């Protein structure tokens, strides 16, 4: 019983970060109906940037988003204008091909620059564990989960209340109508894409407080966030968080009770089953 609770709890903590990663993907997909296959590699890239910031300039992983967020934000704008914008009107095969190309490119370049061996930061100011009776929780994971939730809430406020946020929502509902109402949809698309990739910077920083990074991670985070997106459907941030938690908990339970190797297996199985039986997601609005 204790093992179950412990495992569920660590799953919940991971799930919050997963939800943050998937939020970025969901923004991009919701607004311009483009699935960014490179999303997982964006996370990996920002983890490597965090690693650089930490090892070269001694910036703590938890504060690194101050640098990596603008970096990834700019990168997102560049990618949008350089690649995505050119293919918006094209056959979906072309759209996917472009982001797959980007994914392969980022995967290869990380392998060239940082080599295949795993990298981790030596320290973070959030360290140690907290004990609740017989349960232990790593402080870094707890803090990361809390920060993820706060960021998700900020984004949800941004989407609900601010003008650019409302522009994003309007464009995602109907881009033609939105542009007739005076919304510059090109700029909105760029903003959504940049924000989506900027969020991976925060997630990457949080992950680096307790994890290492290696070049195979991109694919894992990518498929993981697709799974959460498929579960959540579009348009509901609460649904996204719950789906993140579902994925986090099932991954954690699979690791504890089945086989550590089964963690990805469980995620992909959920993904495929959800696609089969609930193609619009469990919490989908559209």
């Amino acid at each position, binding site marked *: 019983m204790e093992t179950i609770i412990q495992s569920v709890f660590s799953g919940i903590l991971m799930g919050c970060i997963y939800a943050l990663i998937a939020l970025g993907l969901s923004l991009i997909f919701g607004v311009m109906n483009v*699935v960014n*296959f490179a999303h997982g590699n964006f996370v990996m890239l920002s983890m490597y940037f965090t690693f650089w910031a930490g090892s070269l300039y001694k910036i703590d992983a938890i504060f690194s988003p101050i640098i990596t967020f603008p970096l990834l934000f700019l990168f997102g704008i560049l990618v949008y204008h350089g*690649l995505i914008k*050119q*293919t918006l009107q*094209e*056959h*979906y*095969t*072309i759209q*996917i*091909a*472009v982001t*797959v*190309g*980007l*994914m*392969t*490119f980022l*995967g*290869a*370049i990380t*392998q*060239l620059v940082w080599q295949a061996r795993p990298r981790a930061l030596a320290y973070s100011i959030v360290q140690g564990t907290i004990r609740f009776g017989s349960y232990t929780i790593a402080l870094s994971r707890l803090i990361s989960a809390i920060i993820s939730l706060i960021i998700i809430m900020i984004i949800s406020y941004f989407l609900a209340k601010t003008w650019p946020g409302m522009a994003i929502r309007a464009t995602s509902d109907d881009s033609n109508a939105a542009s007739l109402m005076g919304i510059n949809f090109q700029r909105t698309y760029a903003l959504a894409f940049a924000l989506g990739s900027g969020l991976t910077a925060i997630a990457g920083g949080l992950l680096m407080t307790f994890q290492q990074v290696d070049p195979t991670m991109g*694919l894992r985070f990518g*498929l993981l966030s*697709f799974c959460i997106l*498929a579960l959540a459907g579009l348009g509901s941030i609460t649904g996204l968080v719950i789906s993140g938690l579902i994925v986090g908990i099932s991954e954690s339970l699979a690791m504890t009770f089945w*086989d550590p*190797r*089964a963690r*990805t*297996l469980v995620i*992909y*199985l959920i*993904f*495929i089953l959800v*696609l*089969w*039986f609930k*193609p619009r997601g469990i919490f989908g609005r559209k």
Partner: protein
Amino acid sequence: MNFFKEINLGKLLILILFIIALGIPYVLRANQYQVLLATTVLLYGVMATSWNIVGGLAGQLDFAAFAYLGIGAYVSGTLFIRFNITPWFGMILGGLVASGFALLIGIPLFRFGIKEVWYALTTSALVEILKVAFNMWEKVGGPVERCLPYFSGSWQNMRFVSYAPFYYIMLAMLVMALIVNQKITNSKLGYYLKAIGEDETATEVLGVDNRASKLKALFYYSFLIGMTGGIYSCMYGYIHPSFFNGPESTKVAILGIVGGRGITYGPLLAALLLVGAQEFLRASLGGEFSGLYLLIYAVIMVIVVLFKPRGIATIFQDIYRKFVVREVKNKDVA
């Protein structure tokens, strides 16, 4: 007149290329390593050509090429190791099992209307699922390599001392894949698939059974690749979960897109150029640039997709058309 000319010229070109392909092992005879590399080029040619049926004609971006290859390899390899069944037979069985598996996945996928992005995502998840599953499945070896028994050079069991026979087997496979591809392209099914690739909803409205057509395409594709899997396991002499290779599956799709979706020889062309260059670099530079070639692939893919979305084969088509048209014009003048 023009029609006959086109056929003859095309046939002549194919014949010349085929003769060159036949001669390659003789040129490289001294160097087994290079024959292996040439065989690898052909392997990707087979895979990209088969991919063309689903990814090119039907427009379903499939990233699971190595899933079917791995299944084929495992079926034929395990049958050989455990029951001493010759890979010649196991290969066909492997193809059948691979296509059975593909249909098992494909029927619910198409039943629930999963297409476009979601199809692409599902298939790329498939490779990873199988990799993990075969890692955990101890009966067929788990994470340990299982070697195929080696009776020195017995052709009955597809075990050869040199790589040249594998080269010819792969060449035969390639010819088969090309013929199947060409036959499908010119058949009713091919026209259905092309229509599906352009606009699925419109095709459905016109009364085409989308689901059946896509399943047939999936069957041919996975059967061809599953059979290739049998050869693959014999060529390398072992079976291992690393056969389920995600990045390489993506590479097959890249070759198909770069070559030209729906053009029979397009993916083969891309495989010859890109994989050929890659293996040539590997042979001359060694393994130092192992990460570099994927980078080059990605860049080429993005450039081709942005500027020549129909693939590099269209460049050759344009040149060819210009050439033929000019000749006809000259004749008219004369």
